[in-house]
C-alpha cells in the first residue's frame, strides 16, 4: 500500500510564554490530502500550535517541515508564499474593503509588485490586475458568496464573514489550509454549508487542519483527530476511537480529582428568603452572535453554584452579563432584590458582586503585594484592609512566599490564586469565578478549587464557571449545564457527576 506523503511535519515543538508551557514537545504530522481535526480543552495550545505553524509565534525549540523543506522560524508572509494559509479565531477581515478587494489582496500574494509598472500603467500590470480579480471571483463562486462581492466586509453577517476569510485564504493558492474555529458563531444551517465546503476544499487537493469546538462537526469531517491537553499531545486517532478514548473524555470533563464528592450542604432556599441573584429570561449577544438564549436561574445566599459547559457554550458571556460588562439584549437580573442589568461593573463591585475574569487579568508589572492591594481600591478602612490582607495570604500561602515578585513572573496557577486573592480584598458577597482551572495542571486545579471551597465555607456565595466539569461538580452544591447558550440540565452537583448527559453536552454524543 502506498504510504501517503507527509505534507507537514512538526517535531518536538515547544513554546514557553514566561513560565507557562503553551506547547510541550508536540509532534504533529499531517498527510497530504487529509482533513485533520485539532481539539482540546480551552488553553490546551491549539491556537498556539497554529501560530507556530504559520510563523506568528517562534517556537522555543523544535522544527517544522513543509513538503520536506524546513520552514522553522520563517515569517508569516514567507510561509504564506510557501503554501500555508490560515483563518483566525477572531475574524480578521480588512473591514473597510469590499469582499472582492479582500480576496484580491490574497490573490496577488504570489507575484511581486512593481512601482514603476503601476505608475506607468504598463499593459503587463493591467493584465496581472485582471488575473487577480478573476482569481478572486473564482474563489467567491467556489465558496458560494459571489453575490456579496461588492458589499463592504464589515457589513456582512458573522457567518458570511467567516466564509470571506476562507475564500481569502484559498486565493493564496495554498497546499495546507488551517481553519481556527470556522464554525464559531454559526447557526446549524451555516454549519452544514461549512462542512460541505470543507469537503470541497479537500477535494481540490488542499490539506485541511481544523480547530473546532463543535465536536459533531469534527467527528463527521476529520479523517484523524489530534487531541492537545495542557500543551501536550494527548491522543491521535480516528474520530470514533477518539470519542471512546478514556483519556480524552477525562481531559474534557476534568480528571478524577481526589476529593470527596461534596455532600450537599445546601438545604434548598428557605421559604422566606429571596435569592441573592436571579436571572429572568436573559438573552445576550456577543458582537453579531446570539450567545445566550432565555437564561433563567437563581442563586441562594451562601450557595456554591457551578455553571459548566463546553468551550463556546456562552459561560463567559453569561458571567460578563451578570457583572455588568455586557448589557443583556433582554431580560432582567436581580441582585439583593435590586434590578442590576444596566448597572456598571464598578457600582456592582461596591455592592459586593465581584467578578474574577477568565485569563486572570492580573497586573504583570506590579508586585504580588501591589496586585492584592489593588483589590482594596474602593475601601477606606485601613484596619479592615490589613486584616483581610493577612487572611488572604493565609488562604494562599504560596503568595506569601512570592509577595515581592512581579505578578507576571508567577506561574499560571499562582496568577489564578493572585486574581482570586485580589477579588477577596474587595469584600465580595457574591464571587463570580470564570474558569479558574484554565491552563492549570490537575494538581493545581485541586489546590485552587480547595481554596474556593474554603472561601465559600466562610459564608460567601460563589458562582463558578468551569469547563472542567468533574472538578467543578466536586466542589459545588448545585450546578447548571449550558450548551450553545441554553441551560440544558440542572441538579445537585453529586447527581450531575454521574449523569451521562453531561458527557453528551461536551463531546457531542
Amino acid at each position, binding site marked *: 500500500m502506498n504510504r501517503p506523503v507527509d505534507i507537514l511535519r512538526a517535531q518536538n515543538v515547544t513554546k514557553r510564554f514566561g513560565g507557562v508551557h503553551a506547547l510541550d514537545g508536540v509532534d504533529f504530522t499531517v498527510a497530504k490530502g487529509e482533513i485533520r481535526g485539532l481539539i482540546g480543552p480551552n488553553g490546551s495550545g491549539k491556537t498556539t500550535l497554529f501560530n507556530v505553524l504559520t*510563523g506568528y509565534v517562534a517556537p522555543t525549540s523544535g522544527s517544522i517541515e513543509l513538503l520536506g523543506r524546513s520552514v522553522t522560524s520563517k515569517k508569516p508572509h514567507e510561509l504564506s508564499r510557501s503554501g500555508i494559509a490560515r483563518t483566525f479565531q477572531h475574524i480578521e477581515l480588512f473591514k473597510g474593503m469590499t469582499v472582492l478587494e479582500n480576496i484580491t489582496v*490574497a490573490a496577488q500574494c504570489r507575484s511581486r509588485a512593481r512601482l514603476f509598472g503601476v505608475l506607468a500603467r504598463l499593459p503587463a500590470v493591467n493584465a496581472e490586475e485582471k488575473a487577480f480579480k478573476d482569481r478572486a471571483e473564482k474563489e467567491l463562486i467556489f465558496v458560494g458568496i459571489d453575490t456579496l462581492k461588492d458589499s463592504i466586509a464589515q457589513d456582512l453577517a458573522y457567518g458570511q464573514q467567516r466564509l470571506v476569510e476562507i475564500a481569502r485564504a484559498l486565493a493564496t493558492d495554498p497546499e495546507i489550509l488551517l481553519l481556527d474555529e470556522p464554525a464559531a458563531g454559526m447557526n446549524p444551517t451555516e454549519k452544514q454549508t461549512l462542512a460541505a465546503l470543507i469537503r470541497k476544499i479537500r477535494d481540490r487537493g488542499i490539506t485541511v487542519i481544523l480547530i473546532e469546538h463543535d465536536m459533531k462537526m469534527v467527528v463527521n469531517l476529520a479523517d484523524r483527530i489530534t487531541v492537545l491537553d495542557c500543551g501536550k499531545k494527548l491522543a491521535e486517532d480516528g474520530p470514533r476511537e477518539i470519542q471512546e478514548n478514556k483519556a480524552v473524555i477525562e481531559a474534557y470533563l476534568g480528571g478524577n480529582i481526589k476529593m470527596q464528592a461534596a455532600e450537599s450542604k445546601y438545604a434548598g432556599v428557605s421559604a422566606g428568603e429571596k435569592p441573592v441573584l436571579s436571572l429572568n429570561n436573559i438573552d445576550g449577544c456577543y458582537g453579531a452572535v446570539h450567545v445566550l438564549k432565555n437564561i433563567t436561574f437563581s442563586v441562594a445566599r451562601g450557595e456554591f453554584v457551578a455553571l459548566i459547559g463546553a468551550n463556546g457554550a456562552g459561560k463567559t458571556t453569561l458571567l460578563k452579563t451578570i457583572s455588568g460588562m455586557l448589557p443583556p439584549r433582554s431580560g432582567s437580573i436581580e441582585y439583593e432584590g435590586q434590578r442590576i442589568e444596566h448597572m456598571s461593573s464598578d457600582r456592582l463591585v461596591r455592592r459586593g458582586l465581584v467578578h474574577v475574569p477568565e485569563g486572570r487579568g492580573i497586573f504583570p508589572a506590579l508586585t504580588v503585594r501591589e496586585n492584592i492591594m489593588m483589590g482594596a481600591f474602593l475601601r477606606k478602612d485601613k484596619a479592615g484592609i490589613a486584616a483581610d490582607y493577612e487572611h488572604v495570604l493565609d488562604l494562599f500561602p504560596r503568595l506569601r512566599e512570592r509577595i515581592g515578585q512581579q505578578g507576571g513572573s508567577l506561574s499560571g496557577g499562582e496568577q489564578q490564586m493572585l486574581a482570586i486573592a485580589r477579588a477577596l480584598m474587595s469584600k465580595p458577597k457574591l464571587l463570580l469565578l470564570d474558569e479558574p482551572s484554565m491552563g492549570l495542571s490537575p494538581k493545581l486545579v485541586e489546590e485552587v478549587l480547595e481554596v474556593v471551597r474554603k472561601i465559600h465555607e466562610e459564608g460567601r456565595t460563589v458562582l463558578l464557571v468551569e469547563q472542567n466539569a468533574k472538578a467543578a461538580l466536586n466542589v459545588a452544591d448545585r450546578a447548571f449545564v449550558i450548551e450553545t447558550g441554553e441551560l440544558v440540565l440542572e441538579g445537585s452537583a453529586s447527581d450531575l457527576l454521574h449523569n451521562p448527559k453531561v458527557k453528551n453536552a461536551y463531546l457531542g454524543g
Partner: protein
Amino acid sequence: MRTLSAKTRNLTTLAVILLFGVGSQFLIGDPYVSHVLILGGIYGLLAIGLNIVTGFCGQINLGMAGFYAIGSYTSAILSVRYGFGFWPAFLISILSSTLVGVVIGFPALKVRGGVYLVLITTSFAGIIQTVLNQWVGLTNGPMGIVGIPAPSIFKHQISTLQDWLVLVYALVLIAALAAIRIERSRIGRSLIAVRESETSAQSLGINLAFYKVLAFALSAAFAGAAGSLYAHYMTTISPDIYSFSTSVLVLMMIVVGGVGSIPGSIIGGIIVSVLPELLRPLNELQMIVYSLLIVLSTIYLRKGIMGLGIDTARFFRRTLSVRRNDEQAR
C-alpha cells in the same frame, strides 16, 4: 459598478478642483487670492503624501515638515549655490527626501502602536529643524536662503501668478493621478490591507516591513516635491517655516479633506489655506472661529469633506432604491 463610480468620482472632483484653482485667477483676478490658492496647491501635495502613509497604510506621521524642509533646502541650495536649473533641482529634492523617508521608515517598523510612531516622526522633524538652524555653513542658519531663482519651462520664465497657478496645479494633477494609480493598484491594496489588519495581511504574503518603508518613502517623495515648489515660488526660505505646527497642519488637511481620499487631500490643503483668509473680516475672532470649524469638522465629518459628499450621494441613492424596492414589493 462601485469601482467605476469611485473612479469617476475621483476624476470629477479632480477636474473641479483644477478648474477652480486655475480658473479663479482669471475669474477673480485678485493677486492675493491667487497667492493663497498657489499655497493651497502646494499644501495639497503635502497632504497627498501624508495620505499615502497615514491614510492608506495607517502609519501616523507627524514629521511631514521634516520631509518638506529637505525638499525646500535641497532645491534652494542646489539652485542658489550650484546653479542647478529648476527641473534637476526639483527631481533631486524628491530623491533626497525619498531616501530620508526610507531611513525613517526603518525605525518606524520596530515600534508597535501609534504613540511611538508619533514620537519618532516628531523628533525626526525636530532634528531637521535644529540642523537647519545650526548648520549655518550649509543652510545659512536662521537667516534662511534668499534669491531662489524662478523656474523656466521651455525657455518660458515662470514669473506671473498665472504661470505659477498653472504650474502648481499641473503638478498637483500629476501627483494626484500618480497617487490614485497607486491606490487602485495591488500596491495600494497591500498598503490598505496593512492598515486594516496587520495580522491577516501577513498571512496573505504581505511583507509588512517592505510596505511600511515603501509608504514612508512615497509620502516623503510628495513632500519633497512640495518643498521644492515652495522654495522656488517664495524665493526665500527659513527654518521657522518647517516647524511642528506645519506637520500638524498637514494632518489637519487630510482629516478635514477625508483620510484616505486623494481628491480630499487637495481639498483639505486648499481649505486649510483659504479658510483663514475667508474669516479675516471677523478680525480678532478669526482664529477662534477657524479653530472651532476645524474641531467641528473632525467631530461631525469623520470621513472628511469627501466622505460627506459620498455619504450624501449614498443617502439619496439608498432612499431612491428603497422606494423602488417598495414599489416592486407591491
